[in-house]
C-alpha cells in the first residue's frame, strides 16, 4: 500500500516539493536575519554611506568614529551597566524568592492555601497594561520614582515564577523525599537549601532566563519610572536618541546593535534552554 503511494510521487515532483520547501525556509531565514545583519553593517558606516545608493552591503570603516559619536550622544556604558544591574538584581531576587514561596505552596498545608494559589494564578491573567497605573501610583507613593529599585524590586514577587517553580517541584520532588529529610532531622530551611534547591536547578535556570530577558528588554516601566538620563536603561537611552535632529545613524545603529549583543551571544550558547524557558508556559499547557 505504502509502496503504491510512493510510486505515485514521481521523483520529479518530489524534488520540486523539496526545492519549494527549502526555498520557503531559506526565505524565512533571510527575512529573519537581515535586520540584524543590516544593523551590524550600519554600525560601521557613516551617515552618508548608509543613505547612499546602492546601499552598502559590506563592512564599513567608520566603526571607531561611530563608537565615539555614540559615547557623545549617550553615556553608553553607564546605561548598559544600569540595565545589567537591574536585570541581575531582579533575576537573582526573583529566582530566590519565587522558589522560597513555591516551597511554601509545595511543602505546607495551611488554611486557605488553595484560594491563595488560585488568586495568584488569576493575577497572571491581568494584562500588564492595566497594571501600569497602579504600579506607577505605588511607586510614586513609596517615593521611589526615578530609582532603579522601583524597577527590579517589584519584579521579585512574580506569580508566574512561583507557579512555574511549584509545578516543577510537584513533578521533581516526592513528598516521601521531604519526609525522609524530616526523619533525618533536617529543618525546613535546611531541606529547602540542601535537598530542594539542588533538585530544581533546571527550573531555576528557566526562570532566570525568562526574568533576565524580560528585564533587559523592558521598556514601558522604565519609561514611566525613570526621568534622569544618567539613570536610563538601554531601551530608554536608545529611544531618546532616535529623534535627535540630523541623527547620527551610524552611531545610533551601533548602539542598537550593541544593546542586543549580550542576549544574542547568550542565545548562541544556550539556545535550547532559552527557547524551552520562554515557551515553558506554552508547551506544558
Amino acid at each position: 500500500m505504502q509502496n503504491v503511494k510512493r510510486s505515485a510521487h514521481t521523483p520529479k515532483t518530489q524534488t520540486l516539493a523539496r526545492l519549494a520547501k527549502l526555498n520557503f525556509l531559506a526565505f524565512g531565514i533571510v527575512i529573519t536575519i537581515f535586520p540584524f545583519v543590516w544593523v551590524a553593517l550600519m554600525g560601521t558606516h557613516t551617515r552618508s554611506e548608509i543613505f547612499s545608493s546602492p546601499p552598502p552591503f559590506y563592512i564599513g570603516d567608520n566603526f571607531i568614529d561611530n563608537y565615539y559619536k555614540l559615547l557623545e550622544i549617550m553615556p553608553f556604558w553607564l546605561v548598559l551597566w544600569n540595565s545589567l544591574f537591574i536585570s541581575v538584581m531582579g533575576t537573582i531576587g526573583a529566582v530566590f524568592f519565587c522558589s522560597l514561596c513555591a516551597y511554601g505552596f509545595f511543602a505546607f498545608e495551611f488554611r486557605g492555601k488553595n484560594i491563595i494559589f488560585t488568586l495568584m494564578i488569576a493575577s497572571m491573567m491581568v494584562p500588564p497594561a492595566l497594571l501600569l497605573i497602579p504600579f506607577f501610583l505605588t511607586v510614586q507613593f513609596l517615593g521611589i520614582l526615578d530609582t532603579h529599585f522601583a524597577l527590579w524590586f517589584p519584579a521579585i514577587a512574580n506569580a508566574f515564577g512561583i507557579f512555574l517553580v511549584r509545578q516543577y517541584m510537584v513533578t521533581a520532588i516526592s513528598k516521601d523525599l521531604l519526609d525522609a529529610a524530616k526523619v533525618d532531622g533536617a529543618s525546613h530551611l535546611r531541606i529547602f537549601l540542601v535537598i530542594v534547591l539542588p533538585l530544581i536547578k533546571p527550573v531555576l535556570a528557566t526562570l532566570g532566563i525568562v526574568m533576565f530577558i524580560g528585564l533587559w528588554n523592558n521598556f514601558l516601566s522604565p519609561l514611566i519610572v525613570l526621568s534622569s538620563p544618567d539613570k536610563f536603561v538601554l531601551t530608554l537611552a536608545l529611544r531618546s536618541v532616535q529623534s535627535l535632529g540630523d541623527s547620527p545613524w551610524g552611531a545610533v545603529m551601533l548602539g542598537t546593535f550593541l544593546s542586543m549583543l549580550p542576549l544574542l551571544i547568550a542565545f548562541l550558547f544556550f539556545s535550547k534552554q532559552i527557547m524551552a524557558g520562554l515557551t515553558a508556559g506554552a508547551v506544558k499547557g
Partner: protein
Amino acid sequence: MASLQLSNLSKSFNQTKVLEGLNLMVPEGEFIALIGPSGCGKSTLLRIIAGLDEPTSGDVLLDGQWVNELSPRERKVAMVFQSYALYPHMTVFENIGFNLKISKIPRQEIRQRVTQTAAILDLEELLERKPSQLSGGQRQRVAMGRAIVRNPNLFLFDEPLSNLDAKLRVQMRDEIKKLHKAIKTTSIYVTHDQVEAMTLADRIVILNDGVIQQIGTPQQLYNTPVNPFVAGFIGSPSMNFLNGKWEDDHKTAIILKDGTKLPAPVPKSNTHFDASTQNDILIGMRPEHLHLRPAMSEDIQVKGVLDHIEPTGAQNYLKVRVDGQIITATDLQQSQLQSQQPIELAIAHKNLHFFANTAHE
C-alpha cells in the same frame, strides 16, 4: 532503642476518620508487623509514630515519654520508605551520612560509621554512586543503610520490599531478619504481605478500617483469630466460611441453609466468644485442615460435589460445592478425581472456628 506506646490514638482528615482508638504497647527490641488491606491506615499510623503527622487525639509515648509534639528529629526515629526516597543528587555515601551530618557528628566518625554500615549491607563498592546508577535492590539497601547508620530509637518500615521482584524480596526479608537479630532495635514494619509479616515479626497487628482487629504472635493469629476478618486475612488460601443455625437448644448440631446437619462439638471453652449464646453462627475451616477422607472420631464430615481442581504442583486445591457455595480444600495426595463427583471431607473438631454471624444479617 526504646519502647513505644500508643494510647487511644485517632486520626481524621477533615471529616473522614482514618484511625480510631488505637492502643498498642511495644516493648523494647520487639519487631512488630502491621498488616491490613490497602487504605486501612497503615501508612498514616506510621507517619504519626514518626512525627510526620499529628494525631487528632490520643498519645504517642516513647520510653514512657509523651512525644506527641516532638519533631521526627527529636524522636530519633528512622524510617524506610516504600519509594526509598533517596536524595537523587547525593551519592550513596552522602545519603547514608546525611542525618549524621545534620546532627553535627564529626567527619571522621561519619566516615567510619557509614563505611561500617556499608559493610553490613554490602554497599562498599557503591558509595560514590548516585541513586540513579543503582539497581532496585541496591537502592533498597541504601535506604536501609540510611536508617541503621543512626542507631535510632525506633525503626519504621513502610512496605520497604514491595517494589522488588519476588526473589529479591525473599532475600531482603532474610537480611532484615538477620539485621534485627544483630541490632535488636524496636521496629514497626508495615506490609500487606502476610508471609513477610509471619516470618519477620515477633507480634503482628492487624488493622482494618482504622481499627486494630487483633494483636498477637503469628501462631496466635493463625490458631485463634478473634473475628472472621482476621481469620480470612491470615492463611493462604483463605479460610472457608459456612453459615448455619443451631438445630436445637442442646447445641449438638448445626443446620446449614440447605438443611444439611453437621454434628457439632461444643466449641472450645477458651475461644474468644461463646458460640453457644449465639443463634446464627459462622463456621470457619482452613483449607489445609479439610482432608479427603471419611470422618473419624473427633472429626465432622462435610459432604459436597467437586466443582473443579486447581493444581499448584505441590498440592491440588479442590473446589467443592457445599451448601450452595464453593469451599476450598487442600489435597496433598493429588488424587485423581472427576468433576461433579461427590466428595467427602473431614475436619478435626479442634480445627473448627466459630464466629458470630453478624455481617450476614
